[in-house]
C-alpha cells in the first residue's frame, strides 16, 4: 500500500462523508432509499402490512423502501431505535397499538414517548380484535358469554401470547370492563396460544381477526364478538361488541407510520400522501381485505388524526393496564 493510495482512499471517504452530510432538501425528497423499521419479526401481521403498503409507496416516491425488522422487548427495541434515528425522513417506523400506545402504561421506564417523540404520518390499517373461545364453551352468544365470565371467574383460563402482546392487552381491556380477573395463561406467540384454544386446554382469548377467521370457519373454535363499531366482512355472522351489549369494549390492532420527532413537515406530508395513495390502490385494498384488515377512511388517514389517535389510545390503555415486571 503506497502513500498515494492511502491518500486517495482518505480523500474519497471524506468526499463521501460530505455528500451524505448535505441536508436533504424537502422538495427533492426522497433522493435515496427509505428504511421502514418494523419492530416485529418478518412474516408477522405488522410486517405483512408494511410490505404491502411500502411496495406501493416506493412506486409513488420513486425510491426503494427497505423494510428492516428490529425485534425485541415487545417491539419497543425497534421503536426506541426509530425515536433516536436522524429525522431526515429516511428512517420511519411502522408502529402499532402496542409500541405506540399500550407501551406507555406497560413499561414505566420506556425510552420514548409515542406522543412526543414521533411525527405521526398516517394510520395504515386496523385489524379487529375478536373474542374467541373453545368450541364447547356453553354460552351461545356474547351476552351469555359476558354473564358466564362473571359467574365463572374463578375457573376460567384465558390464553394470551405473552405480557404486552396484542392478545394480552386487548383481553386485559375486556376483563377490566367486565370486571373480572381470570387466570391468564401465557404462551410464546399467538400460534401456540391458538393451538391450546383449539385443543380446549384454555377457555378463551382475544386475538386479531386474521388469526381467528380460518379457525372459526374450520369449526375448531367459536367467535363471540368483534370489538369494532361495525361487523367485519371476514366474519359477517359474528356480532359487534355493541350488539352484544358491551359497547365500551372497542379494540383494534392498528398499524401506523411514524417518523422521528422533528422530521420536516413537507416530508411528512409527502409520505402521508404516498401512504394515502397506497390505501386507495385496488390491489392493496384487496389484499388488506383478504387479511381481514379495515382500511382507514380518508379523514382518519390525516397525520393530525393519527396524532389524536395516539393520545386517545395512550389514555384508554392507561386506564386498564398495569405496569409489567
Amino acid at each position: 500500500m503506497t502513500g498515494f493510495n492511502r491518500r486517495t482512499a482518505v480523500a474519497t471517504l471524506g468526499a463521501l462523508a460530505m455528500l451524505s452530510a448535505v441536508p436533504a432538501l424537502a422538495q427533492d425528497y426522497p433522493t435515496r432509499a427509505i428504511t421502514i423499521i418494523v419492530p416485529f419479526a418478518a412474516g408477522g401481521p405488522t410486517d405483512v402490512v408494511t410490505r404491502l403498503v411500502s411496495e406501493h409507496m416506493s412506486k409513488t416516491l420513486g425510491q426503494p423502501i427497505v423494510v428492516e425488522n428490529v425485534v425485541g422487548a415487545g417491539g419497543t427495541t425497534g421503536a426506541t431505535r426509530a425515536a433516536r434515528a436522524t429525522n431526515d425522513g429516511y428512517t420511519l417506523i411502522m408502529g402499532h397499538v402496542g409500541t405506540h400506545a399500550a407501551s406507555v402504561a406497560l413499561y414505566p421506564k420506556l425510552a420514548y414517548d409515542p406522543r412526543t417523540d414521533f411525527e405521526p404520518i398516517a394510520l395504515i390499517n386496523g385489524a379487529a380484535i375478536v373474542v374467541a373461545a373453545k368450541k364447547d364453551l356453553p354460552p351461545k352468544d356474547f351476552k351469555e358469554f359476558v354473564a358466564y365470565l362473571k359467574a365463572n371467574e374463578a375457573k376460567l383460563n384465558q390464553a394470551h401470547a405473552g405480557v404486552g402482546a396484542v392478545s394480552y392487552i386487548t383481553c386485559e381491556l375486556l376483563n377490566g370492563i367486565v370486571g373480572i380477573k381470570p387466570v391468564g395463561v401465557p404462551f410464546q406467540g399467538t400460534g401456540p396460544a391458538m393451538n391450546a384454544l383449539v385443543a380446549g386446554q384454555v377457555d378463551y382469548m382475544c386475538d386479531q381477526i386474521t388469526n381467528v377467521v380460518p379457525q372459526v370457519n374450520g369449526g375448531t373454535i367459536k367467535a363471540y364478538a368483534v370489538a369494532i363499531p361495525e361487523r367485519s366482512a371476514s366474519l359477517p355472522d359474528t356480532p359487534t361488541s355493541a350488539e352484544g351489549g358491551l359497547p365500551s369494549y372497542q379494540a383494534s390492532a392498528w398499524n401506523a407510520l411514524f417518523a422521528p420527532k422533528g422530521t420536516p413537515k413537507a416530508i411528512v406530508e409527502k409520505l402521508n400522501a404516498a401512504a394515502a395513495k397506497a390505501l386507495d390502490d385496488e390491489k392493496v385494498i384487496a389484499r388488506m381485505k383478504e387479511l381481514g384488515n379495515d382500511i382507514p377512511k380518508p379523514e382518519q388517514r390525516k397525520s393530525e388524526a393519527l396524532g389524536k389517535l395516539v393520545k386517545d389510545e395512550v389514555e384508554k390503555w392507561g386506564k386498564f393496564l398495569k405496569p409489567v415486571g
Partner: protein
Amino acid sequence: MTDLFGNLALGFNTVFQFIDWTIPLLGVTIPIPVNILLCLIGALVGTLVGVLPGIGTVATVAMLLPITFGLPPVGALIMLAGIYYGAQYGGSTTSILVNIPGEAGSVVTTLDGHQMAKQGRAGPALAIAAIGSFFAGCVATILIALLGAPLTKFALQFGPAEYFSLMTLGLVFAVVLAKGSVLKAIAMIVFGLLLSMVGSDLETGASRLAFNIPELADGLGFATVAMGVFGFAEIIRNLDAGAEKGRELVQQKVTGLMPTVADLLAAAPAIGRGTMLGSILGILPGGGAVISSFAAYTFEKKISNNPSQFGKGSIKGVAAPESANNAAAQTSFIPLLTLGIPPNAVMALMVGAMTIHGIVPGPQVMQKQPELVWGMIASMWIGNLMLLVINLPLVGIWVQLLRVPYHLLYPCIVIFCAIGIYSVNNAPADVIMAGAFGLVGYWLIKHDFEPAPLLLGMVLGPLMEENLRRAMLISRGDATVFLTRPLSAALLAVSLALLILTFLPMLRKKREEVFVESEN
C-alpha cells in the same frame, strides 16, 4: 387409499409444473420446472445454512422471506420448506468435522460424529448421516401423507402437563447420554437451565438475571451459547500445545469415504429406530424436534449390547440422532398442514409467506388449498432425494477440509461463527457474549465437563418452565395434575425408569462396565 394416490398425484403434478419462459434477447421459449428449481434452491441454501455454524434456519428464512413475495405461493413455500429440512442435513457436517453443531438438532451428533472424524472415519460418518436423513425423510413424508389428520389429534392431547413431563424425560436423556461423570452431567444440565432463565419472565414480563443489561432482556440465544461453548472453546483447546500433533494424526488416518457393508448393517436398525422416534416426537409443536435427536441417541445407547462404544465413535451414535432430527423436521409440518397452526418459529415465518399471498392457513387448508399442501408434501420427497444427491458427493470435499492447515481453517471458522451469531439479531453484543462463553467453555472442557448436556438444559429449560407454570396455572396450583393425566404420568414413569436404570449399576458398583466411557 385411492384418495391418497389421487392427492399424491395432485402433489407431484404441482411439483412438476412447467412454466413457459421466454429467454430475453433470444426470443426462444422454453418450459421451466419452476417448483423443482425452487426446491433445489431451497435444499442448497438449507445445506449451506446447516453447514455454516451459527447461521440458523430462522434467521435465513426471515432474510429470504421478502424474496418469496415475488414468487407464486406454492413455489415460495416449497423453497422455504427446503431450507428448513435442508439445514438438518447440513447441520451434521460441522458437528462431525470440527465438533461445532450447526443446529440444535445436531448437538448430539458431535458426540460420536467427531470421534469418528478423529479416527479418520469422517467420510463414513458424513455419508451415514446423509443416508439416515434420506431414509427418515422419505418415511416421514409418507407418514404425513397417510396419517397427518389422526396424528394431529394425538398432538392435541398434549397439554402443558404432558409437555412438562416430556421435557423432564428430555433432561433425563441428557444425563444418560453423558460419557463421563454423571454428577458433572447433572451439574451441566442445571447450569444450562440457569442460563435459560435469563431474560423476561413469561408470566409477568419482569426482567430476570439480566442485571439491567438491555442486551440480556430477551434472554441468551441458543446460537450465542452453542457457538461459544462448542465453537470458540474448541478452537482455543486446539491451540493448546500438542493439539497440532493430534490433528496431523487425524489427517493421515483418513480412510475410505463411504461406509462399509458392516457399517451399513450396524447403522440400519439405528436408522429405523431413530426415524420412528423422530417421526413421533416431531409432531409435537415446540421442542419435539429438538428432543428427538437426544431421545434417539439415548435409546440406542440403552438397548445396545455394548454401550461403552457410544461416545467413542460408534456409527449408531451418528445414524440414530441424524435420522431422528430429519424425521422430526418433516413431521413437524403436520400441525401446519392439518390445523394451520405453526409449531415453531420457522413455520411461523412460512405462515407469514402464505399470508402475504393472501392465504391464511387454517384447519381447512387441506380442502381449500390442496395443491399447496400436497405440492409441499410431494416436494419434500423430491427435496430429500436432491439432498442425498447433493450431500453424498460433498462428503469427499468436506473430508478434504480436514487437511486444511489449522492456521487457515480456524480463523475462517471464527469469522463464520461471528457472522452467524451477528446475523441472528443484528446485535454486536451477541458476538461478545459468544466470546465470553468461549472462555467458559474452555474452562469446562479443561475440567472434563461436557457441553452437550448444558445445551440440552438450555434448550429445554424455557419449554419446561413455561409448561410447568402453565400447567400449575390451569390446575390452580395442584401439582397432582402431572400424575392424574395418563400421558403425563406415563412420561414421568419412563423418566423414573430411565433414571433408575442409570443409577442402578452405580449402586451395584459395576460402574466400570457401563460408565467408564470417558476418554481420559
